[in-house]
């Protein structure tokens, strides 16, 4: 009688979390399948054939600007409107920008100069991250022969 009663436990009850520990694998599978069936029946889907849009290799572009490399539409000559003249140079040099950039790089700080500058910076920045106690050591380690900061700071009387 007891065994028969056990099987009569309702499905909803068996689905509960605390009941699942005691279930055997077969009933577990059965329950899972039933759950899946319910979910798939409830799912909506469009009754349409699958869209097969091929990637197009033709791009439409209705502007002449791209095709003919047209200039900027505002122009001023011989100083009639200096603002527009400046703008003209700026807008029309867009396609020549790359060349200009290269020149600018050359004009700027050279690599050697930068390396030299950073060389001196290594000590200063390193000191910043060192603890106070290590400051003195740091100075000795890095430039032991110079030791400019070793000299004790004193009040210097200003000269008249």
């Amino acid at each position: 009688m007891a065994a028969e009663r056990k099987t009569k436990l309702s499905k909803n009850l068996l689905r509960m979390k605390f009941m699942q520990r005691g279930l055997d694998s077969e009933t577990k599978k059965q329950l899972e399948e039933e759950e899946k069936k319910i979910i798939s029946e409830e799912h909506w889907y469009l009754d349409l054939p699958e869209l097969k849009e091929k990637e197009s290799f033709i791009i439409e572009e209705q502007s002449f600007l791209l095709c003919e490399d047209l200039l900027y539409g505002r122009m001023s000559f011989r100083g009639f409107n200096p603002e527009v003249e400046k703008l003209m140079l700026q807008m029309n040099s867009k396609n020549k920008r790359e060349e200009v950039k290269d020149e600018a790089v050359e004009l700027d700080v050279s690599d050697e100069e930068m390396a030299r500058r950073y060389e001196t910076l290594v000590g200063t920045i390193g000191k910043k991250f060192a603890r106070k106690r290590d400051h003195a050591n740091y100075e000795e380690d890095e430039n032991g022969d110079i030791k400019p900061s070793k000299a004790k700071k004193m009040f210097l009387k200003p000269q008249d």
Partner: protein
Amino acid sequence: MAPVMAEAASVAAESLGGGRARAARTVLDQVVLPGEELLLPEQEDADVPGGAGEKLLRLNAGARSRVRVVCGPGLRRCGDRLLVTKCGRLRYKEPGSGSGGGVYWVDSQQKRYVPVKGDHVIGIVTAKSGDIFKIDIGGSEPASLSYLAFEGATKRNRPNVQVGDLIYGQFVVANKDMEPEMVCIDSCGRANGMGVIGQDGLLFKVTLGLIRKLLAPDCEIIQEVGKLYPLEIVFGMNGRIWVKAKTIQQTLILANVLEACEHMTSDQRKQIFARLAES
């Protein structure tokens, strides 16, 4: 013009008779007619009639290198086909530094302007209605321009735009189903020369082809004009030109020269500019 016409006639006869698509590569700088179909280089092998062609196509399908081709004004994509919508000469530009199949377009002559996104045009303010200005741009429909689309404009600080002012602006919305919309700022919010065009000056209309000719990077006409006297010009892609010089006489000369130079040979142009430089 006569040889062009003859050429066009022969093309028409050919396309009517044959009805077959021509390869775009073979008709470069030749006249194409609306309705014609063009074949891109990678589609050419598909054109071979009969079973052999089909086999060839299937064999090559995997190996074919597919590059993106841009079809400019006068051409339209229809599925995988490329159709011509304007009458004119087919032009081609080699792809730039990046990969791609280059740009094809039709160099056509027309007077009617159709708004295109990104074009810079000259418009006339025809109405002020609340937050929006109505701008006549010479197209089928007036464009709208928000009062906030000016540099430095806020809800409190309205731009000073009156009915009848000339506006140099750019299209942000331009398609066949919607009202075109203009702005007078770029994507960074700067005016970059757009906005209300200054007082005085003279506005006149020319064909769209002439505008493109004058804006070409190596245009002799503009270089010559610039040497004459101090002056300012604004070109709108909608066929409008605004000019201004120190005196009314100079402004009128300028307008007449620009208008007349469309159908002149380079020799004639040189003569005119020599005469102008003397006076």
